């Protein structure tokens, strides 16, 4: 009860005596523990020696003689360093091109008047409606026609333009006072120079919010790279993990699967735990990607 009193310390005085909010809180604590169980099992199973046998595999209490054998096996069976590299190339490639396209388009929408602005704005909105993952079939045939089947570029290309990013940048640029730009204009700075030296440096928070959303969503993409990539050495982490899981499942090597999964999600989890607040506020802006 003491603990509850401390947690509800800053609740309005009048509501502090109520029971229902405390029950809700207790239920949430319970569910949060349930929510963590898959992660807990992953950690425990990764360190469990294979000699414990299949019947102890589900035990959530850690083994008394932990081992790194599972991690070593996963590292050797799956080509995880290669998969990680591919995923990083894909995420970085998409992000770099997106930065250019969304900055330029965001600026046009924020600060320039041009014929057909409303029409073009709606053309961008359409991308939000046509979720790219649904267009996998026509996009696969286009990527094949462009000669990009089984290449990382082919995986990246459909995401180079981003309506979500364009709108995010438009919003950020609109908030920048025009006086700053006028000053640069008097000094004779060209359009691209003004974007590069005034708009971009002042919009870093929006860029980082966009980077978080873009990288996490493409780190997690699966169906599209699965269709585009054929050679094993070009697989991203998600495709690699699904193949690895299928192989290890056949031999009931659950400790190895846990270790492989851990390796795939560890970079994301570590980054999240460091930049927690940023992640959460970015995801709130990402209603529709």
């Amino acid at each position: 009860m003491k603990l509850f009193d401390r947690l509800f310390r800053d609740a309005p005085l009048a509501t502090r005596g109520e029971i229902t909010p405390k029950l809700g809180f207790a239920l949430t604590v319970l569910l949060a523990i349930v929510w963590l169980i898959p992660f807990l099992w992953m950690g425990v199973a990764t360190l469990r020696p294979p000699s414990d046998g299949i019947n102890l595999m589900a035990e959530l209490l850690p083994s008394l003689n932990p081992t790194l054998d599972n991690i070593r096996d996963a590292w050797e069976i799956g080509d995880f360093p290669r998969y990680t590299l591919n995923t990083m190339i894909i995420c970085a490639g998409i992000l770099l091109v997106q930065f250019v396209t969304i900055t330029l388009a965001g600026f046009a929408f924020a600060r320039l008047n041009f014929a057909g602005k409303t029409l073009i704005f709606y053309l961008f909105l359409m991308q939000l409606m046509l979720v790219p993952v649904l267009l996998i079939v026509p996009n696969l045939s286009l990527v094949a026609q462009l000669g990009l089947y089984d290449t990382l570029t082919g995986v990246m290309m459909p995401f180079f333009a981003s309506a979500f990013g364009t709108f995010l940048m438009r919003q950020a640029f609109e908030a920048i006072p025009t006086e700053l730009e006028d000053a640069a204009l008097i000094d004779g700075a060209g359009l691209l120079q003004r974007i590069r030296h005034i708009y971009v440096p002042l919009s870093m928070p929006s860029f980082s919010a966009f980077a978080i959303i873009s990288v996490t969503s493409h780190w997690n993409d699966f169906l599209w790279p699965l269709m585009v990539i054929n050679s094993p050495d070009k697989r991203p982490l998600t495709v690699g993990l699904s193949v690895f899981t299928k192989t290890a499942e056949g031999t009931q090597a659950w400790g190895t699967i846990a270790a492989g999964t851990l390796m795939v999600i560890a970079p994301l989890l570590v980054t999240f735990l460091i930049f927690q607040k940023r992640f959460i506020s970015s995801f709130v802006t990402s209603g529709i990607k």
Partner: protein
Amino acid sequence: MSLAEPAALPVATSAAPRPQVLKRLTSSFKASLPAYLLLLPSLVFLALFTYGAMGRVLIDALYQRTTPKAPVRFVGLDNISAVLADPAFTGAVVNNLIYAVATTIPSIALALLFALALSRTHAVSSALRAALFLPVLIPMVAASALFLFIFLPNVGLLDYYIGRLLPVLPNWLGDPDIALTAIMIITVWKNAGYYMLFFLAGLQAVPEDVMEAAHLDGAGPYRRLRHIILPELKPTFLFVTVIAMLNAVTQVDHVFVMTQGGPSNSTNLVLFYIYQQAVEHYDIGKASAATLLTLAVLMGLTALSFRTLANREGGA
């Protein structure tokens, strides 16, 4: 009035005004040119992978080839009627409807509970928010790899701990009556924390003094929720519902890893059906027809979401 105007136009613009109109067009184009150049990179990729893709779906849905190497042949609406007559497709549609409703409702209910319980910021609630948010971050494929073991018959996590209480152990992923439920459990686990964020943001708009005044007037927690919090959260509810519905159509990675649509198509969802037609059966015509039907439904849904968004921005 409006009918008469087009007839009058050719007379008015017969000789002199035409160059003027042309000049005005060129001058407005010239003034707009920098903007077009800035938009060009985005528009090229959008044209290729969004509008072009739409066009190709439309065309591909009208053609058919019997083998991958055979020449294409125009078949009109045959692909669409073939898809609609395919029990695998109609089954996938039914599954997807059940899946959408039965994942959206519990995810949103849980998200609301989490947000209400954790709306005050202190060390404990931040830690709990992070815990509930973790599943959102990880790839669906990784979540599926973990849940493959959780649902494993006899030795898996669920059977090891809960199965002892049941007289007969269910075969979670192998029984056609249960498999879709198992797939839904992962979705709820993965998405509830995401929707929680929107409710947390929405709750900040609920004025604390109104809450306190309501309490002084004798309103208990339930009545405050019903009459103050929920009405305030209405736009959030609409918005999250649309996102959850979109997710129900576009997230199928777990189906691929865990069940491949089986047993006996009981977990087949529409996007996975499209993938199967295209990649496993090389039937681009049928895959495109199914894509077209899905897009039509989804565009209706997103049009709805834009109205919701507009309402939200308007402060409603």
